[in-house]
């Protein structure tokens, strides 16, 4: 059963990720990104990291909404589309093929087996997160909170309409 679920979610994740890359429409790409995140959340559940699965789904919703909003705001699909030249397309495909070969070659033997799978997953218990975040990782936790504040202020400052931008856009 778990093997079936693993294949289902892995196929969903990888297939949707390919669709993100290959879709011509930016909105379809964003929707495929959402599906890929759902697949990731499923894989997290199989790894018994339930809290992280939930967090990934919240993150997916937020990120995809922002992406779709920006696509709407910029009206990207109305812009003239340029052809990608053959050379860069071929180079990208070759790089992709090399990377896939490398990944498959690296993991085709079971060299990362290590000890047997621990019976209980430490990530499954919410209490573990609370204890770790407020003891071992207290400083990173504070720094992350501060980072969010800085990001918020930064976004407000960046997206303020400056006189130069208004002159450039001709409005």
């Amino acid at each position, binding site marked *: 059963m778990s093997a079936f679920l693993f294949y289902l979610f892995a196929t969903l994740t990888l297939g949707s990720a390919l669709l993100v890359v290959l879709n011509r429409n930016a909105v379809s790409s964003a929707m495929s990104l959402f599906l890929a995140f759902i697949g990731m959340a499923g894989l997290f559940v199989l790894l018994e990291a339930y809290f992280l699965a939930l967090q990934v789904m919240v993150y997916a919703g937020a990120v995809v909404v922002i992406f779709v909003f920006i696509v709407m705001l*910029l009206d990207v699909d109305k812009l003239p589309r340029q052809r990608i030249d053959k050379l860069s397309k071929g180079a990208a495909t070759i790089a*992709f093929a090399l990377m896939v070969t490398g990944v498959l070659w690296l*993991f085709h033997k079971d060299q990362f087996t290590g000890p047997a799978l621990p019976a209980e997953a430490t990530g499954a218990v919410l209490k573990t997160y609370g204890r770790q975040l407020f003891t071992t990782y207290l400083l990173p936790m504070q720094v992350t909170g501060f980072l969010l504040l800085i990001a918020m202020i930064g976004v407000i400052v960046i997206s303020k309409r400056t006189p130069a931008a208004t002159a450039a856009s001709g409005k």
Partner: protein
Amino acid sequence: MTIPLNAYLIVAGLLFAIGFYGVLLRRNTLVIYMCLELMLNATTLALVAFSRFNGTADGNTFVFFIITVAAAEVAVGLAIIVQLFRQRQTVQVENLNALKN
């Protein structure tokens, strides 16, 4: 039946490769950004898998931080893209060549 660690690592590696392919192939800044998100998520999957098979929760806590930072990064990056569009009227990377020559 348990799924071996290698299976998760293959999925993570392939996901990273697909994101990498998108960054190289696509010319739309927004789609490149989505592919960057894919690459970031591939690393979190590898971290969670290692954490589960290692029997420690540190990897999971690390992923918690990564997702938070990634959310902040998306917000800032998209604000920069919007501002870029206001200045240049384009989001295609070919047209953003102010530093060329």
